[in-house]
């Protein structure tokens, strides 16, 4: 195969696209650059990235962006239609819906971040340990994983929240408990494919301990598929969190959580439809953003693409 090279500009770009990298660092940067190029080609993925970045910015700058106090009730201004003062109208307590949406972004992002921080390491640890050691450790860990997978996610989360009591911390815990098993599966599958490879054997011969092998040599191999899966799952986490909020089992009033806001608007659905519609739309857009981003990442990081 002969690849006729495109017009070459000297400098950084050439360094990045070199066929003969001089160092491991250059090779890594080159790969990252190619990945980024492929990612930016995907317009939908870029939209997803923008949505997620926007969510993060809104979360950080909520106090600056929100025109009103999200909790300040103003009963004289109940369920107003959208107007210049209140872009998305007001709710049943006269609170500005736009401000509540902006502050609600914080809860959404926080729930997702906390779930990922809890569930991903647990799944990674369980999966790599199972795949690396094999035998009865593998059998036991995977059996436990299967038991959790056998539970329908939302119902397991419901049961947990009902046992622990409603609230945002318990919602996070419940979602995390339902989220880790797939990560364990993925990590195990990746571990099994690499654990017999020569470079692991070479590292072992150099005297690297089991723990060192798992953390230093196997875990990095699992990261890219895990990142893809986690990003795609974030949308699902947002939806479950919103579902719990909708049922009154997540964030408690008066917190401006989006799912709870949809639920509060139900009573006025016919006449004041925007009270429910707008927060639902926000959930939809943010979770779409994570899905688009995850899809794009998968194309770059995990070309085999399987689910």
């Amino acid at each position, binding site marked *: 195969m002969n690849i006729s090279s495109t017009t070459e500009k000297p400098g950084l770009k050439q360094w990045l696209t070199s066929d003969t990298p001089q160092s491991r660092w250059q090779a890594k940067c080159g790969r990252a650059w190619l990945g980024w190029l492929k990612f930016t080609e995907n317009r939908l993925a870029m939209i997803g990235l923008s949505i997620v970045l926007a969510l993060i910015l809104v979360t950080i700058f909520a106090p600056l962006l929100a025109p009103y106090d999200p909790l300040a009730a103003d009963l004289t201004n109940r369920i107003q239609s959208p107007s210049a003062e209140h872009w998305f109208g007001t709710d049943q307590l006269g609170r500005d819906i736009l401000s509540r949406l902006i502050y609600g972004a914080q809860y959404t992002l926080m729930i997702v971040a906390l779930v990922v921080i809890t569930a991903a390491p647990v799944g990674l640890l369980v999966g790599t340990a199972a795949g690396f050691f094999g035998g009865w450790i593998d059998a036991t860990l995977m*059996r436990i994983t299967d038991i959790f997978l056998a539970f329908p996610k939302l119902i397991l989360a419901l049961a947990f929240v009902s*046992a622990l009591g409603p609230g945002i911390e318990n919602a996070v815990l419940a979602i995390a408990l339902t989220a880790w098993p797939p990560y364990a599966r993925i990590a195990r599958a990746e571990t099994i494919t690499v654990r017999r490879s020569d470079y692991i054997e070479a590292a072992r011969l150099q005297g690297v301990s089991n723990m060192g092998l798992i953390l230093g040599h196997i875990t990095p191999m699992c990261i890219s598929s895990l990142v893809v899966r986690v990003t795609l799952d974030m949308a699902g986490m947002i939806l479950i969190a919103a579902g719990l909020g909708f049922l009154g089992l997540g964030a408690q009033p008066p917190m401006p959580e989006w799912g709870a806001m949809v639920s509060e608007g139900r009573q006025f659905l016919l006449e004041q439809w925007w009270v429910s519609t707008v927060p639902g739309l926000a*959930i939809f857009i943010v979770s779409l953003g994570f899905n688009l981003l995850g899809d794009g990442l998968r194309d770059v990081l995990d070309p085999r693409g399987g689910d």
Partner: protein
Amino acid sequence: MFAVTRKASDGRKRARLFSRTGASLVRIVFSLLITFIGLLLVTFLIGRVLPIDPVLAAVGDHASEQVYQRVKEEMGLNLPLWQQFFVYISNVVQGDFGTSVLTSNPVLEDIKRVFPATLELATLATIIGVFLGVPAGVFAAINKGKWPDHIVRIIGLAGYSMPIFWLGLMGLLVFYLKLDWVAGPGRLDAFYVDFIEPTTGLMLVDTLIEGDMDLFWNAVSHIILPASILAYFSLAYIARMTRSFMLEQLSQEYILTARVKGISETRIIWRHALGNVMVPLVTVIALSYANLLEGSVLTEIIFAWPGLGLYITNSLLNADMNAVLGGTVVVGAVFIGVNMLSDVLYRLLDPRARR
């Protein structure tokens, strides 16, 4: 069916194959059993960490200490935890999930009553999802990178991202409240409810058995919106998986072989490629069906659909733990059952797994 090239070792190989099949069957049953016991353990533990005192709930606030202790003993709550667990398992195996505080019926009776409603909804949704989702996925795959692919992809991603309770509300708002094309919440108009005697519990079937077309069409107008909304989620998942399986199969060598033979593109796609796609797709469809059986929780609340999801949620909000755990166990068991069924279907469809 065994290898056509026969060697001397064939007999031995065959014996080994049979014992392997037997062993794998035992292993499947064994692992199902373990999974089910694990499921019971989890529900059992959830029931135990609950901050509600079941004894107190039974005897009331004003009972004396002696009465309290006696009832606690009767309920078996003074036994060690592991013994309680065995009692729980043996009860569940006998179909005894306790009595619902809310309805004061045995939980199993309640579940038998509400389950058909969920089953009907999920089945209809899956049928719609398969009939639209599979062709959409195939269509997207053969037009990869062109606009039909993008449309299917966007529809699918939107389905993955939509909060179902919100879509249900919007559906009610538009098609029921504003346009009045469909009927509102519930399985039948209130006026009709007492007219029908549940035979199968499936409203569409029961009304047809009675031959009452008014009732049938009324039931249709009630189920169509929630079923379509659930179907959308099933469609999104099925179309996406069909597309990816299809792309994988279309890049296989045997597709090139079929082209070399001069076979028409239509036949290559629908006979050769889809024939191979059906193998993994069955698992996907089964999984989506199982998901709908449980995922209808929020839809059932929005549409006041008297199914298992609504039952579990109502019990939950009223701290009726027997009912919640019973419902959870049933849903989990259905999940496991559907998975096993898909395993069997897989073996039927793939000659390589058939032995």
